[in-house]
């Protein structure tokens, strides 16, 4: 099977899967779940089969059709997109196992719609990851927004619908008002929007306009939640937890930072942007978002909202690292996408497991819960340590690279931000961990509970293990992402 067919399969498998899940849902829930699991397994097989080619330095590409003159629906696999696709497809399997436990444990309504839209969202994510030009990227970016809306509005009560409106409003507003003009502008000045190593904009745009175009891209990709475009993320927490876990910790939010990284590496070009003084604001915007989000997280009482604000901060780590514009920092940004995904999905899984087992959602209710749910809270602890960046967790690896990149660029704003935010992360996560393990259990009598359903516990154990394993076993990924900067940055001097 040629790589081109594989790319198209990666898009079709979840879509066909969605149709089958919908049909199976009419027969029996068990068949439907089987359809979900087998679709995700198949998707993994398809996506991961592309890995050897990419490691070998190949960049398989396929063009579907030319929509407008010079603007086509095209796909190309490169290290960053490969990593994103592999990550999203891999975690979809784990998340599907978790969803089964969660959705059944909570007796949620409209489960078929839930699984169908989930598969469609994954198709959109694959499209984003493998897109070969800005136009295709935008197409699937909007598809992801729209296909996740029913998932966010899942409960359907007035409060949920209001929050879902904020979700859709912010994302659509940003993409139509900022991202679309930025893309059209790029096509107009550069004559193309293909992702090209080294960028396409050099020589076509100069002065303060560079900063302006960058701003349109960064804020237009509101899924990256750089302040003030972050409002949708806490609103999206009304969704069932599996949605928060896979989409609002991995697929959707990473799609946002993925757009920013792609644009900086393949559209602007790292060197071109580094030489442009008007792009310097991005570092400060990201730094501000990190600190502000951490401060807001400190004051949260609801566990999922706290995790949402933590996500906002962590996403801006990736933006900050990308904006450092040095090879090691770009690698750091790429692997932080993975490290954060493992850690944050574990945390959300844990939050959902706690809710399923005990209906507890507030921090004040978590005293001593570690003794009732030891597996869940162990996983939670590992995830939290990864957020702070303590070895031996995945978060440490990426932070190491980002710091190294900051030294490479002599960028002390980045250094100071990371140090300060690490302290803040510790300040809001460690008290939870302490109370959970050493607090006095205040669960009222009659409300005793143990662990969540087995499927949920299994899933969070797996992701917690991945968080730990990533600390020891990360060399292939670093090699893969080094290709990214070797292609984009002149000379591999730093690596």
């Amino acid at each position, binding site marked *: 099977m040629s790589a081109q067919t594989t790319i198209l399969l990666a898009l079709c498998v979840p879509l066909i899967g969605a149709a089958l899940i919908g049909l199976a849902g009419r027969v029996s829930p068990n068949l439907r779940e089987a359809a979900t699991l087998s679709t995700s397994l198949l998707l993994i097989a398809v996506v991961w089969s592309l890995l050897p080619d990419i490691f070998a330095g190949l960049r398989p590409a396929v063009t579907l*059709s030319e*929509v*407008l*003159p010079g603007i086509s629906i095209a796909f190309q696999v490169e290290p960053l997109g490969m990593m994103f696709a592999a990550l999203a497809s891999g975690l979809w399997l784990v998340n599907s196992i978790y969803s089964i436990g969660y959705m059944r444990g909570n007796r949620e309504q409209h489960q078929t719609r839930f699984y169908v839209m989930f598969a469609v969202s994954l198709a959109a994510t694959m499209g984003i990851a493998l897109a070969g030009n800005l136009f295709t990227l935008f197409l699937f970016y*909007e598809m992801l927004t729209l296909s996740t809306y029913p998932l966010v509005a899942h409960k359907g009560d007035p409060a949920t619908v209001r929050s879902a409106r904020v979700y859709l409003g912010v994302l659509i*507003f940003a993409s*139509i008002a900022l991202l679309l*003009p930025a893309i059209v*502008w790029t096509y107009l000045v550069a004559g193309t929007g293909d992702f090209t190593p080294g960028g396409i904009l050099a020589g076509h745009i100069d002065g303060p306009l560079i900063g302006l175009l960058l701003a349109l891209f960064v804020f237009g990709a509101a899924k990256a939640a750089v302040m003030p475009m972050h409002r949708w993320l806490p609103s999206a927490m009304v969704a069932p937890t599996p949605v928060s876990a896979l989409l609002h910790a991995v697929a959707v939010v990473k799609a946002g930072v993925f757009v920013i990284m792609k644009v900086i590496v393949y559209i602007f070009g790292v060197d071109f942007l580094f030489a442009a003084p008007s792009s310097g604001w991005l570092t400060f915007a990201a730094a501000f978002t990190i600190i502000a989000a951490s401060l807001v997280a400190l004051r949260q009482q609801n566990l999922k909202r706290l995790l949402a604000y933590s996500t906002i901060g962590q996403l801006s780590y990736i933006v900050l690292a990308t904006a450092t514009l040095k090879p090691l920092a770009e690698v750091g940004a790429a692997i932080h996408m993975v490290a954060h995904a493992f850690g944050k999905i574990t945390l959300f899984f844990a939050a959902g497991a706690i809710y399923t087992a005990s209906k507890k959602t507030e921090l004040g209710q978590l005293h001593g819960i570690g003794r009732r749910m030891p597996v869940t809270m162990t996983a939670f602890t590992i995830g939290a340590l990864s957020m702070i960046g303590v070895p031996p967790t995945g978060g440490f690896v990426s932070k190491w690279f980002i710091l190294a990149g900051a030294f490479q660029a002599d960028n002390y704003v980045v250094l100071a931000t990371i140090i300060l935010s690490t302290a803040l992360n510790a300040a809001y996560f460690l008290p939870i961990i302490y109370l959970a393990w050493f607090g006095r259990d205040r669960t009222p009598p009659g409300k005793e509970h143990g662990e969540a359903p087995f499927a949920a516990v299994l899933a969070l154990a797996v992701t917690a293990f991945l968080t730990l394993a990533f600390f020891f076993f990360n060399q292939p990924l670093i090699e893969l992402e080094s290709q990214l900067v070797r292609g984009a940055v002149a000379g591999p001097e730093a690596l």
Partner: protein
Amino acid sequence: MTILDAHLPVLPVVVPMLIAPLVIMLRPRGLAWAAATATSSMAFLIAMALAAGALDGEAQRYALGAWAAPYGIELSVDSFGALLLLILTGASTLALLAGKASLDQQLEADRQPLFLSAWLLVLAGLSGILISADAFNIFVFMEISSLASYILVAGGPDRRAMPAVFKYLIMGTIGATFYLIGIGLVYMMTGTLNLTDIQVRIQDVSDLRPILVAAGFITVGLGLKAAVFPLHVWLPNAYNFAPHAATVFLAACATKVSLYILLSFDFVVFQQNLIGHEMQFAAFLMPLAVLGILAASAVALFEPNIKRMLAFSSVAQIGYILLGASMVSLLGMTASLMHMFNHALAKGALFMAVMCLAMRFPSLELDALAGAAKRMPWTMGAFVVGGLSLIGIPGTAGFTSKWYLITASMEFGGAGWLLVAVIVLGSLMAVAYIWRVVEVTCFRQPETGPVEVSEAPRLMLTVTWLVALANVYFGLSPWLQTRLAEGGARMLLGEMP
């Protein structure tokens, strides 16, 4: 077949015009509808053949009675005309196909033949405008189509249609009169009515002031007929109270045909001969386009009746079409013509979905439609697809013209960014008014009434989805409208860069 080929340009008028009186006599139930639909389908096929010819890049000319122009009556179909013929005949055919059940619901059986006969006259009249190369014939066909369309609007059971149609009639007549005054002035100065001939002879006219006045009369008169903001006041009620099937038909094409005359006149006849005309044209129409987009979208945001909301949205969409044209650039004009096609697809799907809703819901007030998506999931699905196209989400037809429009605006540099802002703002308002409907129909619980699924009739739903899917198809592969629109734009702009 070769004989047919030679006469192809005249057939879109002749066929419906001849069948129209016969339809009145078809009393047995359903027969009139079948005859009208068959006629309309035939016109659609003819339009396709003409479009195929236009895609090959030749303007198809036809001398009526073999009298050569400029003495005889000349017909001609170029890319622009072919594009609109496709929209027109397609809208008529699909509206008839989808609308059978709705017509049966809204019209008594014995009035249907009359109504459908008027429908065919509208079709013939509007087709006639599109194939005429002669200013006076355009006027004649305009009157035919207008008079017949008053019958279409007033034909429904809703008595509120009467004042609406009266307003439509008065304003339509004023518009037509202005146009007549305009061509009278042109005839006075040039002595000819053939458009190509006017263009040649106008160059010898020494005193251009009457021509300038004529341009003013023609632009305003046609602006009225095309419902250009602020001359749109007849449109919302006329669309709202017309029978649903007629709304689908008229909303997709009626105003666009008026815009066709406006653009043909302004660009083919006046543009190259009046000094500074493009500035006058742009300076006059661009502000109206911008105001139309913003004001009409804002009204749509607060309109409680969804059919009327979509009518206001149509006024805003005319603004986009005009905005592209008033840029007087190849990209802008292409965007404008493409948007005619794309908007017809999007609005067609939306009004068809509304027609489906009207089969099951007595009122089209938004509040009365709570929970409609549970009763009619397929209908609301089509509504969402049409809505996405109207907003201009990538992957739908509406996106392609928005892309052209934004690119064309950016070509202007600094001031163009203001236009980009207007387009973006208009699209965002479209998101808001479409999503308002989606939220109420999907998530709000109905206060009373049945909640079990009861979809619209099979045929109506199928055609609605056909149009909805056409939005996606022409969004992913917009070869047809792009090529015809670009050909039309090149023709309109002539020698101009």
